[in-house]
C-alpha cells in the first residue's frame, strides 16, 4: 500500500474515475500510479460519504474473476470539481518554465492548447512560445549533458527521466541515474543537450568534497535556499556544510550583497579574487 496517502490522491482518483463506470484493475492502477490495496482503501472511505439528501457518494463492486471494478456514481460525485485554480497554476508554472523541454509523451498540439487555455488566466501575455530544443521522452533512457551548479564544464549523465517538478532553485527533472542507480534531480535550465543512451560515455560518477563555511549575514533571506535542518548558528555567525567548493562559491556570488564569508580562507580568497577581477574589468 502507498505509504502516505494525501487528500489530493482522493481528488485525483475522483477525477480519473469519472471517465468510466467500469475499470480493469490493471488500467486503474497504471493510470493512478498506485497499487490496488491503496485504491480499495480510498474507495472504502469514499463509499462512507453521503450527500446531504442521503445519496451514496460512490458505490463499487470488485469482480476478482474478471479483475474489474464497477462503479455507481452519485450526481454529487460527477458534479464535484476537483481541479483547483491553485493546481492549474502549479501546472502552468511548470509548463511555462519548461519551454525548452519538449516532453514527447504528451501530444504537442494538446499540450499547446492546454497551455494557451491556462495562459489566458495566468499570464501577462508574454510573447514566449514553445521551443523544441531538448526533446525528452519521459521513462525512456537517455544521456544528458549537464552543467552542475558551480561548474563550467558539462558532465554526461545516463538517466531514465521520471517526471518534471519544481524546487526552490527552479524546475527540475527527476530521474534515475543509471550508473549510480539512484534518483537524482537535475535543474532543467542546466541541461544543455540530450542524446541517445550510451552508458560508456557517462562521466557522472564523481565524489563531492563537502566544505563547511562560516559566514555573517545582513538578513535571513538566504535561508530559503539552504536546507534548514543543516544550518547552525554560532557566535552570531551561520555555519553550513555545502556539497562542494564550487557550489559554495556560486551560493555566495548569488548573495554577494547580504552575506560575507568568514572561513575557510581558501573560499574567501577565491570569492574576493573574483570580485576584485570584476571591479578591475569595470575600471579598465
Amino acid at each position, binding site marked *: 500500500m502507498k505509504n502516505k496517502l494525501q487528500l489530493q490522491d482522493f481528488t485525483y482518483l475522483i477525477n480519473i474515475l469519472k471517465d468510466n463506470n467500469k475499470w480493469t484493475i490493471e488500467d486503474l492502477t497504471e493510470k493512478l500510479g498506485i497499487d490496488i490495496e491503496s485504491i480499495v482503501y480510498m474507495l472504502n*472511505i469514499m463509499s462512507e460519504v453521503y450527500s*446531504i439528501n442521503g445519496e451514496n457518494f460512490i458505490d463499487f463492486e470488485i469482480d476478482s474473476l474478471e479483475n474489474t471494478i464497477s462503479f455507481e456514481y452519485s450526481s454529487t460525485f460527477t458534479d464535484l470539481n476537483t481541479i483547483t485554480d491553485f493546481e492549474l497554476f502549479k*501546472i502552468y508554472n*511548470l509548463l511555462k518554465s519548461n519551454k525548452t523541454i519538449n516532453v514527447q509523451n504528451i501530444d504537442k498540439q494538446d499540450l499547446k492548447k492546454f497551455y494557451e487555455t491556462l495562459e489566458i488566466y495566468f499570464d501577462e501575455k508574454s510573447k514566449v512560445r514553445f521551443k523544441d530544443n531538448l526533446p525528452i521522452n519521459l521513462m525512456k533512457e537517455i544521456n544528458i549533458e549537464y552543467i552542475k551548479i558551480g561548474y563550467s564544464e558539462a558532465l554526461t549523465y545516463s538517466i531514465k527521466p521520471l517526471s*518534471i517538478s519544481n524546487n*526552490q532553485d527552479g524546475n527540475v527533472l527527476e530521474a534515475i541515474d543509471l550508473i549510480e542507480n539512484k534518483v537524482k534531480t537535475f535543474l532543467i*535550465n542546466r541541461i544543455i543537450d540530450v542524446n541517445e543512451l550510451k552508458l560508456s560515455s557517462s562521466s557522472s560518477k564523481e565524489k563531492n568534497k563537502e566544505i563547511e563555511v562560516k559566514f555573517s549575514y545582513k538578513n535571513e533571506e538566504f535561508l530559503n535556499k539552504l536546507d534548514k535542518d543543516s544550518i547552525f548558528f554560532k557566535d552570531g555567525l551561520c555555519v553550513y556544510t555545502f556539497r562542494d567548493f564550487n557550489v559554495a562559491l556560486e551560493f555566495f556570488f548569488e548573495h554577494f550583497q547580504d552575506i560575507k564569508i568568514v572561513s575557510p580562507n581558501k573560499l574567501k580568497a577565491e570569492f574576493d579574487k573574483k570580485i576584485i577581477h570584476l571591479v578591475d574589468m569595470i575600471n579598465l
Partner: protein
Amino acid sequence: MKNVFKRCLKLLTLFSSNNETLTTNFIKDNVAEYRELGDSAFKRSFERDKALLKEMGFLLDFENDKWKINDGYKLTGTKIFDDIKSKGSMNIENFINTYQVIKQFFNSDYKLDSRNIYISKIIQAINEKRRISFKYKSSLRKIYPLGLKQYDNQWYVGGNEQSKFKTFKIDNIDDLKMGTKSDLHDIKLKSINFSWEESVEPILLELLVLKDHYSVQKNSFKHSLIKSIDEKNKVKIEISTYDIQKLIIFILITDAEIIKIKSNDKRKILDFIYEK
C-alpha cells in the same frame, strides 16, 4: 487520517451541492463526524480540515459582508476550471485528458510558497476588476490588481495603488482579502514592468561569455539581447538590462568578460558592488 479524509470529502460534497453560504451550525449538523463533537473540538477539527483543503487550493472562507443578510462559509478556488467548462474555450474532454496525461509526467505536488494560494483570488479580482487588500512586509496595501508576471522563478502581481502602478511579490503577500464589488475600474494594461523599470535608464554593455554558460544562465537575469555574435565556443553579446544585481551575479558566475561599457554605467555597477 481516515477520518480527516472522510470529513474533507464530506465538506467538498456539502459545498458542491449548496451554492449559497453555509453557517457553522449547518456544517456541523450535516457532517456526521462533526456532529458528535463539543464546540471546541469541532472548531479544532474544522480549522484543521479547512487548512488541509486550503493546501490544495480549496478556499473555505467566512463571508460577512455587511450588506448581506446571510453570513457564512463559502467554498471558492475552482473558478478557472468552471470557467473553461462554461466558456468552451477548449473542448473540456480534451482538457481533462491532457490534464490527466500531464499529471502522469509533471509532478504538481511540489511545494510552492503557501502564499501562492492567493493566486485564485488575485485572478478573480483581475478578471472582475475588484480591489484587493493585503499585508505586504507588515504594511496594509489596497490595490486594483491588473496582471501577473513571472520572473526568476517568482510570481508578482502588478496593480494600481493610488493611481501609481506597482508590482508586489506574491511570496510576500499575507492575509489577502478581495472586495465584494466588481467593475470598479477601467484601467487597461499591455504589459507589466517592474516599478524600477519605469524610473531608471537601462545599462548597456557588451560581454564575451562561454556559449554554454550563457545558455544556462541567460534566464537568471532580465535583459534584452540586442546582438549576439558566435566566436568559437564563446558568444559576444550586446545587452541592455535594468537588473544590476542579477547582472553582477551573472558575470561572477559565468566568468564573463566585459568588452564595452559606458562610464555612467560603470559607476552604477561599482556603486552597487560597494554598497555591500
